[in-house]
């Protein structure tokens, strides 16, 4: 279906593969994946999460080629009787729809450079204090003064501090990267530089004061090593504060508006650079914003086209006069004068659409409720009896699915959601609901309301490639009134930030015994 091609980033391949038959399907899928790998490695400027676009599910054999998606599964699904579970259309479709799950990680080397640098620095940090201790023992062992219990205490503390440092460093730095940002992360780079500087200066001192002069006071050398580890622990503390804690206190309220349908959400963020703020916003986008449905926007576009196409301007007096502005002004004036009844059409169309949706919804709800009454969980006592028609959830779902399939498909078509839900996903959801003892209403809720993007299968959120468009530099911090855009292939998110105002809280002390009351009397006495 055409709307699918909007979603997938590299969709011209999928159009080709749709018309193919079973044999070429696998080869085209491999070709498609290799193409996606190449083209995405080119675009490392973009904020990426991970690459490829998944293959849309293959069409039903009996469906019309234009409406190639699973749209007609409602009509062509054959009912499964109790004995036969090999109905061809369902099994085959299930086989076609299976995609190789799991994200295909791009083997893009640039993504692993920060991790490699971090590991290198970690290795240096581990090796340096140990080498400070070991080198004197190796190079001039006979001249070293033996130091007793004080040194042993220092050895212990050094060992534990090093262990703690390594664990803390692993916890903070060695994490799978969630995204690749367009510019370097400033704070991490600064911290890496600081650590490197510290290590270099310590090596310098070690080389000059201890190696060259072959210092004999081993106690002093051990204390030197311990002081290095202390300094490294403090740098780690600085890292925790700068990277994790500083942006926790909310300072800015960001308003995120989707450009196609105006859906708005607000988020409170702390002091972050623009690229990190964009990352946080994208992570919230997938769970807060309802899924982008381009089919819902076509009505507005057709109306806009009608407005534009209504009038044609002919220049009678000869060419050369200021054509453009005069023409547009003439158009606007004529359109204002013309009695425009398009608002009438819109009103009645929307009323009609609402009625149709409600009717289909009523039929759907009834069909689903009836379907759910046919399935019942096997009680424990019944399990001991010889097994009759026992089914696991997937089979049970497949058994009751045909009775509601038609109503569900009609409803999805009316609300233009049919490309978001494949037959597989619906059956999987049905099996999930049956397993967890959900009511029919719970099963239907994900189809009646448009949920967040994460709720749908991979086909609906193929664009994981976003472009950050900003006038200010993306590593500059957020300030009041900063604006930027996050563009994806079909729509963009426009973000504006406002500073949270300084709140002044004052206190008012209320003595617990100060709550006293009097009665208000209004007597009137006649004399």
């Amino acid at each position: 279906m055409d709307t699918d091609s909007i979603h997938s980033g590299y969709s011209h391949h999928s159009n080709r593969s749709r018309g193919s038959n079973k044999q070429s399907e696998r080869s085209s899928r491999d070709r498609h994946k290799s193409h996606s790998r190449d083209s995405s490695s080119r675009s490392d400027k973009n904020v990426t999460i991970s690459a490829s676009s998944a293959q849309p599910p293959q069409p039903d054999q009996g469906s019309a080629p234009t409406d190639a998606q699973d749209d007609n599964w409602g009509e062509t699904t054959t009912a499964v009787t109790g004995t036969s579970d090999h109905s061809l259309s369902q099994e085959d479709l299930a086989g076609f729809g299976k995609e190789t799950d799991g994200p295909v990680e791009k083997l893009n080397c640039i993504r692993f450079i920060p991790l490699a640098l971090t590991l290198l620095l970690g290795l240096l940090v581990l090796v340096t204090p140990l080498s400070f201790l070991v080198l004197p023992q190796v190079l001039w062992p006979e001249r070293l003064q033996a130091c007793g219990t004080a040194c042993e205490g220092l050895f212990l503390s050094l060992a534990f501090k090093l262990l703690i440092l390594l664990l803390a460093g692993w916890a903070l730095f060695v994490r799978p990267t969630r995204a690749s940002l367009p510019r370097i992360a400033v704070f991490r780079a600064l911290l890496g530089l600081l650590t490197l500087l510290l290590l270099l200066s310590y090596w310098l001192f070690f080389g000059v004061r201890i190696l060259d002069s072959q210092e004999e006071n081993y106690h002093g050398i051990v204390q030197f090593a311990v002081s290095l580890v202390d300094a490294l622990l403090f740098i780690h503390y600085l890292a925790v504060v700068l990277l994790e804690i500083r942006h926790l206190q909310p300072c800015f309220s960001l308003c995120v508006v989707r450009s196609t349908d105006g859906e708005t959400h607000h988020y409170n963020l702390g002091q972050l650079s623009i690229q990190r703020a964009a990352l946080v916003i994208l992570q919230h986008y997938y769970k807060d914003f309802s899924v982008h449905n381009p089919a819902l926007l076509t009505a507005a576009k057709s109306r806009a086209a009608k407005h534009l196409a209504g009038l044609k301007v002919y220049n009678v007096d000869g060419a050369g006069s200021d054509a453009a502005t005069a023409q547009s002004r003439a158009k606007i004036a004529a359109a204002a004068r013309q009695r425009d009844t398009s608002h009438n059409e819109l009103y009645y169309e929307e009323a009609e659409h609402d009625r149709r949706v409600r009717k289909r919804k009523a039929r759907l709800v009834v069909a689903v409720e009836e379907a759910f009454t046919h399935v019942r969980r096997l009680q424990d006592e019944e399990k001991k009896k010889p097994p009759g028609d026992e089914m696991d959830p997937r089979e049970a779902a497949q058994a009751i699915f045909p009775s509601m399939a038609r109503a569900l498909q009609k409803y999805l078509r009316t609300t233009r959601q049919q490309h978001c839900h494949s037959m597989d996903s619906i059956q999987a959801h049905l099996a999930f609901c049956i397993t967890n003892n959900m009511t029919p209403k719970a099963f239907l809720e994900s189809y009646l309301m448009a949920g967040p993007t994460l709720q749908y299968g991979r086909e609906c959120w193929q664009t994981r490639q976003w472009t950050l468009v900003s006038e200010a530099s993306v590593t500059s911090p957020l300030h009041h009134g900063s604006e930027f855009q996050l563009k994806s292939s079909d729509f963009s998110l426009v973000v504006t930030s406002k500073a949270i105002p300084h709140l002044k809280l004052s206190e008012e002390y209320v003595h617990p015994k100060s709550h006293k009351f009097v009665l208000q009397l209004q007597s009137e006495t006649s004399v």
Partner: protein
Amino acid sequence: MSFIPGQPVTAVVQRIEIQKLREGDNLILGFSIGGGIDQDASQNPFSEDKADKGIYVTRVSKGGPAEVAGLRIGDKIMQVNGWDMTMVTHDQARKRLTKKKEDVVRLLITRKSLEETVRQSMMQH
């Protein structure tokens, strides 16, 4: 009828003498009072200053001795037989008006229209 705390209250007053009417065992005057320092002055519909806790006439029965004597609804009673009524409780006011041994009560009342009449008459001269 403005009241400045700490300053003596000045007002234009009218002297009204009411003869009590005997009805069975009771002597009645034929009007109702409201107000007092123990009452809620903000609900007084007749006072200009809603903090005024004086005694006001809230109802005058038709044809009774008070109406005959010239008492009107909304009047503020300043004195009864020489006793001050500007700083009394509601019950004290009632007692001073209904003493069984007195047949006649001489009231000093004030109302807004009194000031205007006085001013008008002064302007005429």
